């Protein structure tokens, strides 16, 4: 092994260590940006180490490709925060594609020079299958999130049987290829089936269920990188892929738990439609309040908790929320934010939006930390959240969200719920919170209502 090769290997080892530190530093917002630096350093080391590779005969096309990638990548990082899920999905698609293409190229090259051992063939099949499946699956997910594709679940008769048959054909072709790698006619079959599979898997899933799907595709993209590592005998790929794979896996498990779905449901059945039980109960009487009323109530409170949800994201109301927070702080009223793990449409959604609006993260509290304090809270303001504050999850065994942990908004002395209508949220079920005695509804778009509340408060702030 030449000195150059040692250098390459050393840079790979260092890159692997840097990636581990990169993720480790995400354990706190204080060290998190350092984590990005470590990640960039690791990636640069890995790329430079690779460019030293003696088998590279020309750099021209590599540089062209790198430039193209940069030119596409930079604007992709400017998307508004509400489009982050789509961007993530798109990015998984690219990752899957890269894995699939490298696997395909390696197959062709080894087919020519006879390097196809059955172990390598096996690794290639896994890489290609996961890669292309991730490509089309993620494109579908991105399309549904961007609402380019219909977001409703698309189902047809015998769907499961059809998918199962296709899967069988793909596995049989793969197995045959491992046995006889030279039957190249089967290789395109595997590719096409993998591509089809990605589409078919995401087709029956509603747009709102995409976050779980995206996390799962994240795990698949990671596993595809691992398989590429086995194909190319490259430990760095295995390490980075495994880190990515476990991240996707853990995030989907967290989402499942917070939504009270079983995990097998995600691995297989997340790929199944969410039964939207549109339980239309008798319309219960609700009390409503004007922004001025809300402002008055807030003025007299000493402890306030804001519970944001998907509606805050839709209305882009996070800046108004921060203004409210400042008004309260000015009066010495304690204001905290109660963040439910699956509030919004992706893990950590609320945190990023509030951070964008410059709410200090020290004011954010996790569900388990704030729930014991809820009975001492004077006013809980629910901003476009619905399912995550539905008390039915605690006691109504027949409810589809029964058992899902919720933020106990109903235990606060007064609850103010800001939403546009009495329509249900993501889970499609009514929320008894709104008809509770201590609950007032402030109907309207979250941004507008909050704006009025803040105006009412700042108008009075001189008097106060």
């Amino acid at each position, binding site marked *: 092994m030449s000195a150059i090769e040692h250098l390459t290997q050393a840079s790979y080892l260092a890159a692997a260590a840097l990636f581990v530190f990169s*993720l*480790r530093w*995400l354990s*706190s*917002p204080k060290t*998190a*940006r350092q*984590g*990005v630096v470590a*990640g960039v350093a*690791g*990636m640069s080391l890995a790329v430079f180490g*690779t460019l030293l*590779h003696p*088998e*590279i005969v*020309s750099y021209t*096309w*590599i540089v062209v*490709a790198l430039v193209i*990638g*940069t030119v*596409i*990548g930079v604007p*992709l*990082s400017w998307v508004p925060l509400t489009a*982050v899920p789509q*961007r993530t999905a798109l*990015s998984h698609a*690219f*990752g899957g*594609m*890269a*894995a699939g*293409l490298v696997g*395909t*190229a*390696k197959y*062709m*090259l080894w087919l020519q020079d006879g390097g196809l051992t059955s172990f390598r063939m096996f690794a290639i099949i896994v890489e290609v299958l996961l890669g292309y499946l991730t490509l089309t699956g993620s494109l579908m997910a991105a399309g549904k999130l961007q609402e380019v594709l219909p977001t409703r679940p698309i189902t047809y008769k015998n769907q499961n049987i059809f998918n199962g048959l296709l899967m069988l054909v793909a596995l049989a072709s793969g197995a045959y290829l491992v046995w006889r790698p030279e039957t190249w006619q089967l290789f395109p079959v595997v590719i096409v089936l993998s591509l089809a599979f990605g589409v078919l898997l995401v087709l029956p899933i509603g747009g709102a269920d995409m976050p779980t799907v995206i996390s799962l595709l*994240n795990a698949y993209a990671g596993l595809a*990188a*691992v398989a590429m590592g*086995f*194909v190319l*005998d*490259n*430990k760095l*790929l295995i390490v980075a892929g*495994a880190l*990515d*794979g476990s*991240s996707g896996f853990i995030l989907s498990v967290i989402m499942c738990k917070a939504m009270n779905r079983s995990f097998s449901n995600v691995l297989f059945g997340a790929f199944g439609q969410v039964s939207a039980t549109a339980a239309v109960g008798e319309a219960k009487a609700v009390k409503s309040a004007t922004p001025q009323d809300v402002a008055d109530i807030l003025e007299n409170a000493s402890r306030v908790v804001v519970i944001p949800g998907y509606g805050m994201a839709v209305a882009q109301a996070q800046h108004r929320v921060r203004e409210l927070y*400042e008004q309260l702080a000015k009066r010495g009223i304690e204001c905290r934010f109660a963040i439910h793990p699956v509030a919004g449409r*992706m*893990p*950590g959604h609320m*945190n990023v939006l509030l951070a964008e609006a*410059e709410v*200090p993260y020290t004011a954010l509290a996790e569900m388990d930390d704030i729930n014991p304090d809820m009975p001492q809270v004077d006013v809980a303001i629910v901003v476009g959240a619905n399912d995550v504050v539905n008390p039915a999850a605690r006691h109504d065994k027949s409810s589809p969200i029964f058992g899902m942990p919720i933020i106990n908004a109903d235990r606060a002395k007064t609850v103010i719920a800001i939403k546009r209508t009495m329509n249900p949220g993501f889970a499609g079920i009514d929320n008894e919170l709104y008809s509770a005695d201590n609950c007032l509804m402030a109907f309207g778009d979250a941004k507008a209502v909050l704006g009025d509340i803040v105006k009412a408060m700042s108008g009075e702030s001189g008097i106060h």
Partner: protein
Amino acid sequence: MHTTLDLWSMLFVFMLATFVGFQVIQSVSRLLHTPLMSLTNAISAIAIVGSIIIAGEEKDTTSLILGCVAVAASMTNIVSGFLITDRMLKMFREKGRQQ
């Protein structure tokens, strides 16, 4: 002989990296789950390593093209992944603005 002994090395590496991954990810702050998604996204674009070799070897036109597309795709992920992660992380502050 060589590749099969190495197979076991790779399995060791895979197993240990998975252990590390699970432990590290579980300790990531819940606050940062969205940036976590984009950061792992960028890291998994390490596929660029394999793509560069395929593209650089220039064994034949097909593999050159496939390799270059893979390099461009991975580079897109690297650039956009790290940039957007940093953009999000910059927003997390202990204190509010001007305080």
